[in-house]
């Protein structure tokens, strides 16, 4: 009897603690701490939630990694090993994943992130941990301006830079009455704010006749198009992308919203968004994008061919970015001659340049923003698919924030 009671209690104790013990045991298993030969870099991105962008990005980066290692690696024969992790698409998850990359994988520095709020949280984490973070994709101006810190460098041209490119491109048309449509979150709001500011500089008598801010991913396209139409603008600045964009464009095409109007549109020329548009692609929108199918200069063409051969898919803008960042990592490590954070930062801040297939890219030390540019052109239809025409690569160096604005915004 006593024995049985004993058993009962032991069982209960075991069961009650089971969940806890199991999880703690899982956590406590010590990671392999061996500082092996390869140079490890932690890359976290939204591979699951924003796969349309992030998977081609990872493909591009893996291609670069293979080529670099085939040519002898980095830092005198060490292999470059990029550890890819899903960032969960929330700041909370991303900061934990960043911690895992640092403490368990012992990566030399961090790179990646897609959403702006995720990028900002990881940037602050890097600042706290005194670790280098290369924010590759987030477009928010804040990451190099108000929320900038000495450990964070951003690669892609920011919202401000891309908006400025579009404003320059439409300036000659002299459109005066503009309406704005943008998704209702930071990216959309700051693009709209940038546009308002920049268009008044470019066309002093320009006027914003109205704005629409549909919720991200939930546009009520009919109502939004009708609301814009009723404003009778001569030009429309569009920041919508993804599913919002396709539904907006089809609705606008049917209702004739874009006829005889100038449309400037951020990112719409990127294959990620042009492919779903297909036959619906509007004619003559002025966009930023990536006309990979028309690029002929040798190094870039070689990348495109290698990418298509390896992944049996056409490259996206993400592919170009991932590939470029792969080589940026190599050049950074080679020039610093070390994986030490301070040396890496000193290198990046000291007139650092790396070669991308689109040309040399520098880092401006003042706001730690790269001068990577974007392709600006017009949309057009080729058969049943969307494409870009009359495009040219705009070097980001011409579109950086004015130095005075950076100095006023950055808190360092």
């Amino acid at each position, binding site marked *: 009897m006593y024995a049985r009671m004993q058993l*009962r*209690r032991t*069982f*209960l*104790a075991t*069961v*009650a*603690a*089971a*969940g*806890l*013990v199991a*999880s*703690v045991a*899982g*956590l*406590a298993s010590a*990671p392999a701490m061996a500082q092996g030969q390869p140079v490890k870099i932690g890359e976290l991105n939204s*591979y*699951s939630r924003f796969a349309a962008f992030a*998977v081609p990005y990872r493909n591009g980066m893996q291609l670069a990694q293979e080529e670099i290692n085939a040519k002898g690696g980095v830092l005198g024969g060490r292999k470059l090993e990029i550890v890819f992790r*899903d960032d969960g698409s*929330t*700041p*909370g998850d991303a*900061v*934990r*994943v960043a911690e895992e990359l640092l*403490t368990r994988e012992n990566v030399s520095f961090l790179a990646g992130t897609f959403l702006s*709020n995720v990028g*900002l*949280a990881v*940037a*602050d*984490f890097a600042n706290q941990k005194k670790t280098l973070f290369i924010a590759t994709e987030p477009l928010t101006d804040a990451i190099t301006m108000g929320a900038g810190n000495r450990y964070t460098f951003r690669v892609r041209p920011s919202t401000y830079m891309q908006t400025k490119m579009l404003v320059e491109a439409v300036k000659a048309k002299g459109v005066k009455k503009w309406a704005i449509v943008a998704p209702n*979150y*930071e990216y959309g709001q700051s693009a709209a704010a940038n546009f308002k500011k920049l268009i008044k500089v470019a066309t002093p008598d320009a006027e914003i006749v109205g*704005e*629409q*801010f*549909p*919720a991200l*991913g*939930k546009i*009520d*396209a*009919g*109502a939004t198009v*009708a609301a814009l139409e*009723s404003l009778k603008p001569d030009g429309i600045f569009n920041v919508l992308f*993804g*599913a919002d964009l*396709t*539904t907006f464009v*089809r609705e606008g095409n*049917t*209702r004739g919203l874009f006829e005889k109007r100038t449309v400037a549109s951020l990112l719409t020329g990127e294959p990620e968004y042009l*492919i*779903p548009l297909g036959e*619906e692609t509007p004619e003559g929108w002025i966009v930023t994008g990536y006309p990979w199918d028309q690029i002929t200069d040798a190094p870039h063409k070689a990348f495109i061919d290698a990418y298509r051969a390896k992944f049996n898919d056409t490259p996206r803008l993400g592919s170009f970015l991932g590939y470029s960042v792969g080589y940026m990592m190599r050049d950074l490590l080679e020039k610093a001659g070390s994986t030490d954070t301070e040396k890496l930062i000193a290198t990046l801040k000291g007139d650092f340049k790396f070669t991308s297939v689109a040309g040399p890219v520098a880092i401006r030390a003042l706001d730690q923003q790269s001068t990577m540019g974007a392709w600006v052109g017009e949309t057009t239809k080729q058969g049943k698919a969307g494409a870009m025409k009359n495009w040219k690569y705009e070097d980001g160096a011409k579109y950086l924030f004015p130095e005075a604005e950076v100095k006023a915004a950055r808190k360092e």
Partner: protein
Amino acid sequence: MTAKRIVAAKRDHHLSDLSFLLVQALNGLASASSLFIIAAGLTIVFGVTRIVNFAHGSFYMLGAYFGVTLIPRLLDVSSSFPMFLAGVLAAALGVGLIGVAMELVLLRRIYKVPELFQLLATFGVVLAVQDLVLKIWGPLDILGPRAPGLRGAVDILGHRFPSYELFLIAMGPLVLGALWLLMHKTRFGVLVRAATQDREMVGALGVNQALLFTGALFLGAALAGLGGALQTPKLAANPHMDISVIAEAFVVTVVGGMGSVPGAFLAALLIAELQAFGILIFPKITLVLVFLLMALVLVVRPWGLMGRPEAGQARVVLPEGIVRLQRFGRAEHVAVAAAGVILLALPLVGDAYAIKVAIEVLAFALAAFSLNFLIGVGGIVSFGHAAYFGLGAYAAGLMVTRLGLPMEPALIAAPVIAGLGAALFGFFVVRLTGIYLAMLTLAFAQIVYAVAFQWVEVTGGDNGVVGVWPSRWAGGRTTYYYLALVVVAAAVVLLRRGIYAPFGYTLRAARDSAVRADAIGIDVRTHRWLAFTIAGAAAGLAGGLFAFSKGSIDPTLISIPMSVDFLVMTLLGGVQTVVGPLVGAAAFHSIRDLLMPLTDYWRLLLGLAIIAIVLAFPRGIVGGALLLRSRLGWDDAVARARARTPA
């Protein structure tokens, strides 16, 4: 010109143009039809089965993907409108069959466990379907072809209006009519209505419930699929559309009155027209409008516009939640001591990352425990518990970053502010019951979310605020872990005392029979209000701790997925046990952390893990363990208690 004058000028401009107003009303009607078709399915499924079907959004998404796959192939055969329609109907039928499969394989096995648990199962389906869609159709959005014959636009008072949208406007009333016929002229429909009014009575009269449920699931899923397939000429099928539609579908259903198809129609009309005209006056209102409306409707009409109080409500039902409180025996004390030793020793054996994850588990455990204080003890099912977690996090974060105060006062402010918020919202919440109560908590959470999202100057908008770090003395990882451990343990012990105190017994009495509790002189509403406030404060404390462990605050802390995570943790551990939510939080967070680095398809694995746990432990992990103990005859008292609850 000031902002106000610009808005006024714009409004005048719009309002002066009558033909535009008419077109905008038509735009609203087209959206209303789409919204109604989806919500009708949800309301039928809920009416009959009482399942809060999160997977309804997944059905909608599948309908769209089936549509963009089937319709182009059919149009290749012959590009005609009947072919298009055939494709739409085939997609709806296909999704209906998937609904049947979900009922047969998953839901049927768990009808007898607490209703809430089925919600957990459907959430597992949501996660799994998200990744399956990604796997099958790829990540790129797919735009369907335009409908033949309705490609263009017609001229309405000088405005071009898409003819397909006229077709959609007609579809809403058409589906409403068809459903009315089905509900009033067929035996199946009569049974559906009967079950919606009084499910127990229908069962008692010998109606084959299994068949009825399968039928309801088929109809509900097919309607969602129809809604999705009808959208394909307008909206590209994309892997995010499940989430974007589900909240709105719930709002329509609740505003109309759960189970009422005409109510859903009315609500869809109201919401779509408000949306169409609202954006003319406040372009940024898109985020919050529907939830404001729902909160308003529920405060004024607790059962929605056309819903009725449940017929069986006065009947005494077997309670869901903590039925029987057990005091700790020696075995339990041993378990607690063991857990305590493990937690205390963790920093000695685990690396920095393990401690980081453990801190998060601690914060989530407190949040889940406080949620079960509401669900398990008070019978108050909150779908918006993240509001208070988030209020706490924001209170703490903003005090540190904006006011420059140190961590200590911020950590005190977190539960105070969250408690105040909970007291304010709770005042309205506790007047309702059941699903209406749950949806009102969701509405309030979305309002808090929208404020955090839109009030950029103060909250930093969706970028949030960074730089929320602990005071220097607590800055070390290990120190902060012990701080969190002490704070969480103290809060859990306090809440647990509340459960075991007369206050907890009173709450449970009110939960089991509000009428009887009222009759013996208990002020039910005030007790529930107090419980809501206390639980909110505890969640706020958890939020404060979480914010300092992350170094940042942002609206995802208040979002619907966060609220759902807390629900999942609570249910996973078991709502019928006191310690269940703690184990559930540890298990859920550990599983997620384990799966995330493994594969891009971690949502699929997480969803499958949840479904497996639901099937294996239909009472949650701790509930399952206790049941197993009693099955083995190791605890007669527990066995006796179980025998009184439905097996």
